[in-house]
């Protein structure tokens, strides 16, 4: 009696699979565990294996067909056993005297059981999983006592659970990797697809906050004339604070890369500079590691040479986040356009004395509006808002820069 081979759920979320290639031909002998076909799931290319031995009697669907989970794809039986397909797609085995009772579909491989206690993994597997954003708990450990080892990560089924890189601040180490590539999770994929349909190729949303700049004003005043270094502008202070805030919010310091997100460990700030007939964005590299004095000197130099059109290509590419400032042109607030593949840009308005409630009294305070444009495929509303919150707190307490 023939055994039915059905499309199996090869991943916990799989609803259908595309049968890419048959690995066994009709009439070929099959042993339990043999690979019958390769199947592309929503996540990876997986193998469909035989759960009964015998002869592959019939390939019910041709290669290239997309098949829902638990639909019949093949029959395995005795050599020479005759099967015919009914028009309704049901098989009929010629030598069966009674209709073959439907064999229950083989159980789908169980998703890994929730891990109780400590997850066992080799140090290498643990490190690579963290780097690739793979949830160790989603893997089947093939080592002793279920230890997850390197080969378990290299299986095609090993997919990202959650972007670990984005979840915690990255500790930068000298000589460490410059960034972490994180595969897209299904939810990230869906967000990217849906939002791009709605709002063009870069689905952008905007977050605005108003910052009290009194203390930054004082700080800049105190720095002016201190020593013989370059003059520090508000923009320099903002760049430094943005870099430090990004260090705390690496989820905003990222590139959209179509099939994954690149979370940068390095912070390179693109700085929009108006030039004749357009604008260009020279990059202050490793802005988080530079002193205010270094940033001031570098931004003056870059902006000057940008206006003279004497920047080298490597000086205006490779940024991980942008800052655009129109405050000096009396703009209160504006929205800036994201510079792909970066995922965020900060639009800086002018500093203006405004009557606001301060310590329970009406007071004149210097205020500035910041608007951040976020690529929703990378940054969610709350993520961007938390970054702005940190940035605002830093600007309102500039001493935080040296803390």
């Amino acid at each position, binding site marked *: 009696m023939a055994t039915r081979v059905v499309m199996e759920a090869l991943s916990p979320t799989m609803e259908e699979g595309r049968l890419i290639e048959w690995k066994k031909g009709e009439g070929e002998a099959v042993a339990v565990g043999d690979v019958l076909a390769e199947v592309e799931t929503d996540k990876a290319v997986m193998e469909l294996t035989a759960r009964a031995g015998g002869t592959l009697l019939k390939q019910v669907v041709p290669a290239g067909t997309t098949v829902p989970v638990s639909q019949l794809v093949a029959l395995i039986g005795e050599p020479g056993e005759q099967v015919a397909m009914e028009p309704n797609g049901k098989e009929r085995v010629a030598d069966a005297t009674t209709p073959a009772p439907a064999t229950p579909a083989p159980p789908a491989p169980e998703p890994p059981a929730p891990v109780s206690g400590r997850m066992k993994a080799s*140090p290498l597997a*643990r*490190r690579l999983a963290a780097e690739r954003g793979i949830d160790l708990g989603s893997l089947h450990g093939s080592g002793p006592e279920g230890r997850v080892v390197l080969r378990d990560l290299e299986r095609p089924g090993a997919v990202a659970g959650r972007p670990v890189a984005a979840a915690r601040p990255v500790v930068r180490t000298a000589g460490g990797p410059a960034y972490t590539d994180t595969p897209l999770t299904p939810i990230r994929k869906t967000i990217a697809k849906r939002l791009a349909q709605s709002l063009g190729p870069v689905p952008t949303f905007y977050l605005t906050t108003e910052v009290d700049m009194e203390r930054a004003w004082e700080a800049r005043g105190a720095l002016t004339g201190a020593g013989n270094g370059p003059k520090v502008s508000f923009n320099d202070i903002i760049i430094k604070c943005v870099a430090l805030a990004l260090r705390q919010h690496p989820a905003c310091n990222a590139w959209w890369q179509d099939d994954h997100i690149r979370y940068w460990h390095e912070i390179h700030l693109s700085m929009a500079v108006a030039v004749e007939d357009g604008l260009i964005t020279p990059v202050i590299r490793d802005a988080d590691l530079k002193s205010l004095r270094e940033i001031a000197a570098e931004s003056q130099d870059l902006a000057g040479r940008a206006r003279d059109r004497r920047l080298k290509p490597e000086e205006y590419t490779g940024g991980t986040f942008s800052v655009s400032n129109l405050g000096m042109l009396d703009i209160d607030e504006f929205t800036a356009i994201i510079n792909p593949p970066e995922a965020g840009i900060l639009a800086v308005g002018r500093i203006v004395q405004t009557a606001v409630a301060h310590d329970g009294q009406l007071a004149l305070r210097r205020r500035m509006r910041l608007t951040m444009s976020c690529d929703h495929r990378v940054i969610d509303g709350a993520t961007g808002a938390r970054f702005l919150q940190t940035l605002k707190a830093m600007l309102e307490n500039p001493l935080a820069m040296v803390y």
Partner: protein
Amino acid sequence: MNLTYRDALNQALREEMQRDPDVFLMGEEVGVYQGAYKVSRGLLEEFGPMRVVDTPITELGFAGVGVGAAMVGLRPVVEFMTWNFALLAIDQLVNSAAKMRYMSNGQVGVPAVFRGPGGSALQLAAQHSQAFESFYAHIPGLKVVMPATPADAKGLLKSAIRDDDPVIFIEGEMLYNTKGEVPEGEHLVPLGKADVKRAGRDVTIICHSKTVGVALKAAEELAAAEVEAEVLDLRTIRPLDEEAVVTSVARTHRCVVAEEGWPFAGVGAQVVDIIQREVFDELDAPVIRVTGADVPMPYNKHLERAAKVDAARIVAAVNEVLYR
């Protein structure tokens, strides 16, 4: 030139004695008998009894003479008939040779080489089949060198003789007859540098002296099963080439450490310590050590074979770290 390990050592001694009149050889039977293992063949004839000195059977005594000679500016090469006999001399090695530079505030060094065969041969039983490298490597102030091939034997002995610190130079009794290509003339192998004897990407087998040959045989068997093992010969036990160890293991992610000696506090224990500390995040499996059995060496032929490191045990350890 294709030479035996024995003749490569002989060549190194001859070249260094020709090069530097301060170099002299002393030990039991090194002169008239030309060495218990014929390493000093022809040297008495060429350099005379002032520079090739036969000593009484007094290891502590002539080791002390060696230390004293080195302290006043000569470069003695002291041969022990085997390192098993050198147990009697260990006070001079540990308390004098190793300490002199430190205790004289750097004023007096001991540029001496103490050399001879170590480890087991065949059925020499418990008292004459011992690998003592971890004893000496334990002592700050001593360098410990163990060549595995004729070329390394020559190059390392020449470097050891020129070194300004006391060097414990442990040869392999079973290696004296092995043959290999040896560069002629000035061939120096720096102390403290390990050597990749076979490159591979799947696992690193760290070894020294006699276990290098065993590891190469294991690697050959593993290659048939499509496992590419890297064989790293430490060559110098102290100072240990940590960089070579770390670099190789970081690339292969798995490691087996083989040595002839006993397991407790052996050389491999130190190697494993470095690995777990420096490349913890590169490891895909615990490092496994393959050592001699933790017993006095049996005299019985079959038991002796069972107590020694062999290729099958290294292959089994490699399979374990590869989860095969």
